[in-house]
């Protein structure tokens, strides 16, 4: 078959593929300048769908007309891998989902978000701004518990001052949030000393007296105990909370206690009406839940009270094809460029020895 196709036509095709590769590089540069959201719109637009389709066809035709691409295993794997990635990408795209709904009645949304309150269940996929319901799942997710872990040793205390008119707040100091750290402020303002760091601040009242403890039980309520020494010598104790910044004010001073999250976990259970068995998983960043054709990712959480979790929901349509393509692509590049390419003479020498 290859011999029947004029050589000139084959080389013309090779040049078109090269042109297509460079056109995609230019479009990717444009996309990088537009930012992720607008780049996504660009690459999912109708003209780009045509571009992807033509690219896939060019690669497929290339494999048919260039005997080398079929005879050299590495090259075959590379090109077949690229075709699979493109096909999987198109199959899982917004347009791909629309076409599957139209022709096969597969009703899935490509992407969305879910908010699940602690102790409650949810089954609605919402848009990114949570204003529009995109789909209702045939199952629901119950959030048994949400847990947040911090890098306590890396915390920072930020100090702000409100001006006399009360309209502007300026940052006037920053210290590591560690017991013993001291911050001297401007004249007329107190000096600060961090006395204690709480992982889980609790107030208990017994016989009318309040006791402040760092509760070792499960839970997180990070706080700092500060000692303020005013210019007149008065001492004042104050507490600064990571989760409740509105309580962090003493006179003209505002405080912020910043902790970096180490990880956050959602203890989720899938509940299907009428089904006795359920699926339960601790979802965290890098460990999504896969169920019912969707992946549920730990995306965000309630920064104030930790009472709800935000999950991003992604359809798994086309994902297997893409990753199959990736596997072939990687295998093919190493095979072709390393083992049949630059290292071949050495490998042959080793074999002949």
């Amino acid at each position, binding site marked *: 078959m290859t011999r029947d196709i004029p050589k000139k036509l084959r080389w013309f095709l*090779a*040049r078109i593929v090269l042109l297509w590769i460079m056109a995609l590089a230019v479009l990717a*540069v444009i996309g990088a300048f537009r930012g*992720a*959201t607008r780049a996504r719109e660009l690459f999912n637009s109708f003209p780009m769908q045509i571009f992807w389709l033509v690219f896939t066809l060019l690669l497929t035709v290339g494999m048919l007309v260039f005997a080398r691409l079929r005879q050299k295993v590495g090259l075959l794997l590379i090109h077949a891998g690229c075709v699979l990635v493109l096909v999987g990408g198109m199959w899982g795209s917004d347009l791909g989902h629309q076409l599957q709904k139209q022709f096969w009645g597969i009703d899935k949304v490509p992407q969305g978000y879910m908010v699940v309150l602690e102790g409650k269940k949810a089954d609605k996929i919402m848009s990114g701004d949570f204003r529009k319901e995109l789909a209702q799942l045939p199952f629901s997710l119950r959030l048994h518990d949400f847990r947040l872990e911090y890098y306590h040793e890396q915390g920072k205390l930020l100090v702000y001052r409100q001006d006399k008119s009360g309209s502007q707040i300026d940052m006037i100091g920053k210290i590591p949030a560690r017991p013993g750290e001291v911050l001297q402020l401007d004249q007329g303002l107190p000096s600060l000393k961090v006395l204690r760091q709480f992982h889980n601040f609790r107030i208990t009242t017994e016989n009318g007296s309040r006791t402040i403890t760092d509760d070792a039980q499960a839970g997180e309520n990070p706080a700092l105990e500060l000692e303020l020494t005013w210019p007149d010598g008065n001492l004042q104790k104050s507490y600064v909370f990571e989760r409740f910044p509105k309580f962090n004010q003493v006179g003209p001073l505002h405080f912020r206690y910043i902790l970096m999250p180490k990880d956050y976990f959602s203890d989720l259970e899938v509940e299907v009406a009428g089904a006795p068995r359920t699926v339960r998983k601790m979802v965290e960043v890098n460990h999504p839940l896969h169920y019912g054709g969707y992946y549920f990712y730990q995306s965000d959480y309630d920064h104030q009270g930790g009472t709800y979790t935000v999950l991003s929901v992604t359809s798994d349509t086309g994902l297997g094809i893409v*990753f199959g393509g990736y596997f072939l692509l990687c295998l093919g590049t190493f095979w072709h460029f390393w083992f049949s390419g630059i290292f071949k003479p050495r490998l042959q020498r080793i074999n002949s020895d």
Partner: protein
Amino acid sequence: MEIKWTIQGGIIYAALATYLLAFVIAVLQRGKPAKALYIIGFLLAVVSFIYRWLHVRHVPMQNLFEVFVTMGMLIYPLSVFSRKYLRVGVEASDMLLGAVVLFPAGFIFSAEPQTLPPALQCWLFAPHVAVYIISYVIMAKAAVQAIGQLSLPSGPRDSSLVDYEMATYHMICLGFPLMTLGLVFGSWWGHLAWGDWWGWDPKELWSLVTWLVYLGYLHFRYIYGRKYKRINSIWAIVGLLAILITLLWVNLAKLFSGLHSYAT
């Protein structure tokens, strides 16, 4: 520009100075002392990498300071490997390359230790970044060979070595599979962490651009062979420019910082 008055900074400066001295001596045709200094520079770079690892208590590849420290350690093994297995030489330029990649670590990027955000606590963190760093160093060496082809058409003096154009091609053939693996690891990780195997994030797009530039080089060289050697070489240099933009994008464009902002 900042001078690091720390043990870490001191080791980096020592490695940088040793690489530079090795380069100068190599240019003066003093092969053995230059090689000895090159090895000392490499050992210092390894010490710097290990010191950083112990200091931050995770693989030091999180930010640009750590990436450049790691690169400084990879130059010497790459030199030895390329000469032995690919017949690609010009170690003097590698010595200079070692100093060049350690310069940003020593004088530009902050060495402030950073904790790993949740997204980076993944087994793919080290392999994804490592294969990319290795491929970038290889492609930098490819670009140096390409510059050699453009400026010294007579080729290397050592007849056991391949000419500069072929050396460029060999280096790109060595680096391209690693770059592909880096791209695929990144996509896999994106799927695990952010819910999307491809997020159209600016850094992702620049890494795609880089991959496509080298893919274009390989196709161009396949179509035209060694007919247009200068274009082949210019293409390899453009590839390095694309790598630099990809690597430094999060710093160059704060407006489009995207999901990879922690990598500053």
